[in-house]
């Protein structure tokens, strides 16, 4: 019977304080949900990509060299720290002889190779005559195992049969060229054939152009990479580290970005939840003072009373955690991962949950729900039942600082005096509320800033930096003279895009993108971080700010540039330009030739007066994209982050509402008796409302102001956490602050409206019947 009575009491208490319990529940569920949800993104990408790399035995770096000899390979293998070195041939622009002439990247590999294997999803091992085909490509082009496929390499045809469909870890993010941002499985994929099959396209001799290198554990990658120069000499094109592979780089960037989001934002959610839960649980237990006395007097054991009160926190906390762990991965995780799965290919589908972080978050929640109710009940346990039961003297009023200024004090209305004294008496709760509100306002500002950051990148690139209509990728045979002879009607700018290896004086080396174009550059408008135009220097190079930062160089420094057919050439960094995404270097075609390269345009930028469709369909070009397509592809590429920012805006908004609601209700509950007393005296509604509402409004406004620096800090942290490819400048614009303030104030107004109704419905007789 005894047990039953306590359980009934629990249910009654929970009903009575349901709004408080509900808000704690929502906050706990949000904090856990957001934290685990965002974590799921990066832990899933991380786990899947790492497993993928391991299963396919991905190389630590690749050496691109023209026709490396067996001796070269032997020398690489004999470097201490090199575990394995294998050769292969890759060509990026083969075409499949099927509808649409899609592009294939061909890997021609010796059958004994073990590095960079493709992961076969269906079919059998590669034979001498067959081919392993990109599964996504096959699906998009309705090809399956057993189908014949003819590819065209070096203008020669190679007939194969599809023996297996597979995934490749090097192509985890499969984009065709530098102009594309979105994988296009119908238009681009990879194919693996035996080295013997490719020979026919190259005059019967087996060609090689890559050495794949796997290092032993703990080997000094930089040192080993630097030895490639002496081994390959003039044959060396570049050395590409695993992390510079576009797919690996992309996966890493997503991991870095979401790890940063999953740290910064949940931290705010937990902080706010902890603060609000703390003040609410304290208050609820304090309210139960008399009840605890009664239970003690009735002879309930200390243990059962403690458990009775702790159980409130346990139930609410557990319920929140449970809903959070279900909601986080299944809703947030699934939603955002689905956007990333459009971009990346993984062999497995399942989600990987960050268990340790979840347990950490759950223990924080439990500490602040169960822990606080346990402790505040324990505190009351030490008082004698008689003490607890004694009619509690009215809470002591106290004079406050302001009263020392009679000029101010004596001219205040009673409601203002009372509000001031109440505020001073409940300093702790008010400070906690203000911090809660500031956390929410900061969170909303931060989430808006994240939205601006990601939407700013394509805007900067495709609205300010570039002004072409179309970017045309030229066929490798097309010369600049041929283009000039075409007399295209519009503004035309040709450019060469490739990658070069740079080495700093300190020995830091990096394969980076290089863009070469004329100094006039009518269609590419380089800018510095402040938005001022930058023209290319006549001699020397311009480097993007982030790259300079990563390579630890500045204007005036000299870096060694690896030329395609010779050794290094020292170039001076003359200018720093700002690019929000895609870091690299820029130089004029004149300087490019001066350092000994040929200017061979790879792309043509065109702003048409009259679009020349003949040209766009001619053999001069391999493909073309519109600037608007590039922009929307870029946006698609970042859609998971857009989703995240929207999610955070929404959940920050929900949190703000819960915090404000909870604050309003606590404040109201503390004032009920005063309000009833005044109502009996004959005060009208509008005269007593300020007692509760003023405090709410002031706390909200102060909270919003304190939220601004929090939001700015969040924005700065996020901007810095996008990875090496991105150089983002966090700007919290006044309109974002206004939006956050408007959201928060709107909720404050709604809460005040609810409180107003509650004030109106106070039953003054009931309120005054008992003593507290």
């Amino acid at each position, binding site marked *: 019977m005894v047990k039953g009575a306590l359980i009934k009491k629990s249910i009654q208490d929970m009903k009575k304080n349901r709004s408080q319990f509900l808000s704690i529940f929502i906050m706990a569920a949000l904090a856990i949900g957001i934290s685990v949800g965002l974590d799921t993104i990066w832990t899933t990408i991380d786990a899947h990509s790492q497993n993928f790399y391991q299963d396919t035995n991905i190389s630590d770096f690749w050496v691109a060299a023209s026709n490396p000899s067996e001796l070269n390979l032997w020398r690489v293998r004999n470097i201490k720290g090199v575990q394995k070195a294998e050769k292969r041939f890759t060509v990026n622009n083969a075409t499949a002889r099927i509808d649409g002439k899609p592009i294939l990247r061909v890997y021609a590999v010796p059958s004994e190779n073990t590095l960079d294997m493709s992961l076969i999803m269906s079919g059998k091992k590669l034979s001498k005559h067959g081919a392993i085909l990109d599964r996504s490509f096959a699906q998009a082009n309705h090809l399956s195992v057993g189908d014949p496929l003819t590819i065209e390499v070096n203008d020669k045809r190679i007939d194969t049969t599809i023996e297996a469909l597979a995934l490749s870890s090097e192509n985890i993010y499969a984009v065709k060229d530098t102009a594309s941002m979105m994988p296009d499985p119908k238009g681009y994929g990879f194919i693996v054939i035996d080295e013997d099959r490719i020979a026919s396209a190259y005059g019967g001799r087996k060609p090689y152009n890559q050495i794949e290198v796997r290092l032993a554990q703990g080997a000094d990658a930089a040192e080993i990479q630097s030895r490639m120069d002496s081994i390959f000499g003039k044959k060396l094109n570049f050395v590409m580290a695993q992390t510079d592979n576009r797919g690996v780089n992309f996966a890493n960037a997503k991991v870095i970005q979401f790890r940063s989001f999953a740290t910064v934002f949940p931290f705010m959610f937990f902080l706010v939840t902890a603060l609000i839960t703390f003040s609410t649980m304290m208050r609820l237990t304090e309210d139960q003072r008399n009840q605890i006395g009664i239970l003690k007097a009735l002879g309930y054991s200390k243990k059962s009373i403690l458990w009775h009160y702790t159980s409130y926190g346990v139930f609410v906390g557990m319920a929140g955690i449970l809903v959070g762990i279900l909601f986080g991965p299944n809703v947030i995780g699934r939603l955002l991962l689905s956007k990333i799965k459009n971009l990346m290919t993984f062999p497995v589908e399942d989600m990987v949950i960050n268990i340790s972080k979840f347990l950490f978050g759950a223990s924080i929640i439990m500490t602040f729900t169960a822990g606080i109710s346990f402790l505040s009940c324990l505190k009351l346990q030490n008082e004698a039942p008689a003490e607890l039961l004694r009619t509690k*003297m*009215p*809470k*002591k*009023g*106290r*004079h406050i600082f302001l009263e020392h200024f009679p000029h101010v004090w004596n001219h205040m*209305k*009673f409601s203002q*005096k*009372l509000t001031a*004294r*109440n505020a001073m*008496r409940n300093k702790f709760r008010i400070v906690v509320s203000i911090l809660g509100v500031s956390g929410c306002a900061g969170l909303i500002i931060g989430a808006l800033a994240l939205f601006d950051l990601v939407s700013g990148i394509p805007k900067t690139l495709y609205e300010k930096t570039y002004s072409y209509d179309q970017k045309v990728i030229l066929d490798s045979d097309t010369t600049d003279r041929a283009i000039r002879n075409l007399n295209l009607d519009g503004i035309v700018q040709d450019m060469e895009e490739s990658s070069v290896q740079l080495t700093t004086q300190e020995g830091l080396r990096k394969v980076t993108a290089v863009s070469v174009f004329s100094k006039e550059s009518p269609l590419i408008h380089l800018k510095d971080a402040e938005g001022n135009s930058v023209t290319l220097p006549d001699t020397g190079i311009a480097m993007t700010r982030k790259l300079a930062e990563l390579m630890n160089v500045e204007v005036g420094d000299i870096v060694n540039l690896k030329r395609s057919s010779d050794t290094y050439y020292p170039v001076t960094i003359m200018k720093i330009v700002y690019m929000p995404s895609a870091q690299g270097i820029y130089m004029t075609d004149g300087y490019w030739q001066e350092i000994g390269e040929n200017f061979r345009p790879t792309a043509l930028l065109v702003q048409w007066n009259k679009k020349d469709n003949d040209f766009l369909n001619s053999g001069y070009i391999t493909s073309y994209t519109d600037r608007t397509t590039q922009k929307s592809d870029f946006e698609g590429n970042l859609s998971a982050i857009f989703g995240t920012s929207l999610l955070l805006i929404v959940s920050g908004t929900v949190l703000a509402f819960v915090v404000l609601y909870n604050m309003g209700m606590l404040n109201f509950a503390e004032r009920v*008796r*005063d309000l*009833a*007393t*005044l*109502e*009996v*005296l*004959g*005060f*009208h*509604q509008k*005269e007593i409302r300020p007692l509760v509402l003023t405090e709410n409004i002031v706390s909200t406004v102060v909270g919003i102001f304190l939220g601004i620096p929090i939001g700015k800090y969040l924005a700065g942290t996020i901007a810095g956490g996008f990875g090496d490819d991105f150089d983002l400048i966090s700007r919290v614009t006044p309109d974002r602050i206004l939006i956050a303030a408007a959201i928060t104030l709107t909720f404050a107004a709604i809460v005040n409206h609810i409180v107003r109704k509650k004030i109106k419905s106070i039953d*003054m*007789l009931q309120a*005054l019947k*008992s*003593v507290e």
Partner: protein
Amino acid sequence: MSFIQFEGVEREYIVGDSVIKAVKEVSFSLEDKSFNVVLGQSGAGKTTVLNMLGGMDSPTKGAITVNGEDISKLGTRELTTYRRDKIGFVFQFYNLVPNLTALENVQLAEEICKNPLDAAEMLERVGLGDRKNNFPGQMSGGEQQRVSIARALAKNPQILLCDEPTGALDSGTGRIVLKLIRDIARDMGKTVVVVTHNAPIAEMADTVIHMRDGQISEIRHTEHPRPVEEIVW
């Protein structure tokens, strides 16, 4: 027509499916500037009657006329105005605002009344002139009740309603408080209604209303009520 008039007043409470008649068919009238006591056992309906008279509750049936105005049909706003202008309330548990000093609690009246009495002066009259700046928490129950009386009277109301004003006090203190109410009310010419289940108090009343089970069992008028000092508790 009397100053206060109850005519067939009923008050029902609906609790779940059942209807509780707290007050049934109550009729009585009280004179202006009279001192009246309502007696009865617990649950008899005394508080309910007082609350309806004070404009804190409305009857479900019947009419309550105060100074010629029927207050039983007033809305919330008008009832508030009625309380504000005409009624002073004293409760068993004082109901002072804990965060206002004694003086400020009394000054509350000044904020809302047309012609309030001076707060400091009222505190002097209840004998608490030197406790003006104390907070309720720093005063004894009797002192708090006196502040509450000062507050009720500072509004300069026509009617002073007291619901068991001595209920939480010892008999000596209770007597002082009652005498205070009686004396001040007489000096100021207020109509007073005191609810109690302490029969001896009735001896100092002009009119005594006995209630039982929500009904009036007896109304007794006294020509010469006894002074408080003579009453044996």
